[in-house]
């Protein structure tokens, strides 16, 4: 459920409704730089009404999904 929501936010953020995303998709591979990552992660945090650590270890969509799942568990 978290993954699906994250994908929806990501597709909306990039304005690409058909964007292929997996848990393994990296921010770099999705052409998101560090500033995009900050924006996107904050949007995701706000959607789940929680916050996660953004310390540079976030590399993939799976990393974000994992931390959000942990935060809202």
């Amino acid at each position, binding site marked *: 459920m978290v993954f699906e929501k994250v994908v929806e936010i990501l597709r909306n953020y990039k304005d690409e409704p058909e964007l292929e995303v997996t848990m393994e998709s990296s921010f770099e591979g999705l052409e998101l730089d560090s*500033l995009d990552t900050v924006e996107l992660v904050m949007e995701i945090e706000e959607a789940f009404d929680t916050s996660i650590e*953004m*310390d*540079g270890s976030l590399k993939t969509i799976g990393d974000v999904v994992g931390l959000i799942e942990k935060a809202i568990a």
Partner: protein
Amino acid sequence: MIKTPLCDLLDIEFPILQGGMAWISDAQLAAAVSNAGGLGIISSMNADENWLRLEIQKCKSLTSKPFGVNVMLMNPHVDKIAQVLIDEKVPVVTTGAGNPGKFMKLWIDAGIKVIPVVPSSGLARYSERAGATAVIAEGGESGGHVGELATMPLVPQVCDVVSIPVIAAGGIGDGRGIAAAFMLGAVGVQLGTRFLVAHETNVHENYKDKIIKAKDIDTTLTGRSLGHPVRCLKTTFAKDFIKAENDPSTLNETLEEFGRGALRIAAQEGDSQKGCFMSGQIAGLIHEKASVNEIIIKLVKETEIALTGGTQWIK
């Protein structure tokens, strides 16, 4: 007199910060700026914790006023640097080249005021949430490592999304620039290049002379292809670097090697063949060397004139 909420917040007389410039902003310059009523900032660049500790102690011996340290988050010694700031009870920390999230709580718990330099409204919002005292919205007109946005669009967009004070930086060289920054919603400014030519600044005289000689069109961006653009004067070094950068056969490693140590060479040796003379676009506004105190007094006076003069257009 120019006074904004930033003055009380940082316990300074004027809302003017001196930017942390690697190989340029040392204890002597920082102390001079703080003594003149602004906030002086030591650049910890890529230095180790021992160098920084001595520099902080030197600054304390030269001023009883608050001062800051700029932390370059990509510094390999950054973990130890972070601790030195706490041990030495540095009043203000500004951060650049990354997201300071990892250290925010540590510094804030130690009573340090943290002011990240941000190139986007998203990072500003994130910094506020993490407990930042203020943010420095720095546009790409500045010298050194720059972001994509220019100051004019960046500052109001940052002001719109945070409720902490916003300090404008990039492209500010005189009181007109400071007044403009206030109009955009900032309550403070950070200037780098303007202070580079101060008598108290320990850089090679060639560097100061080049800034004074520079015109509006004399800066350029190097390192775009490496993902970290650097604004500097169009010297032989910069032209050679850009030539190599535009040559598709040049490896990134070769470029990185080309640029290594180039700022130190500029600052200490003044060598325009091998040195990278970082400078903001306002270099063309600077026509003379002066003491830090004279620079700050002039900036404040010019700001008063510009702000007062602005009302003439209200009919």
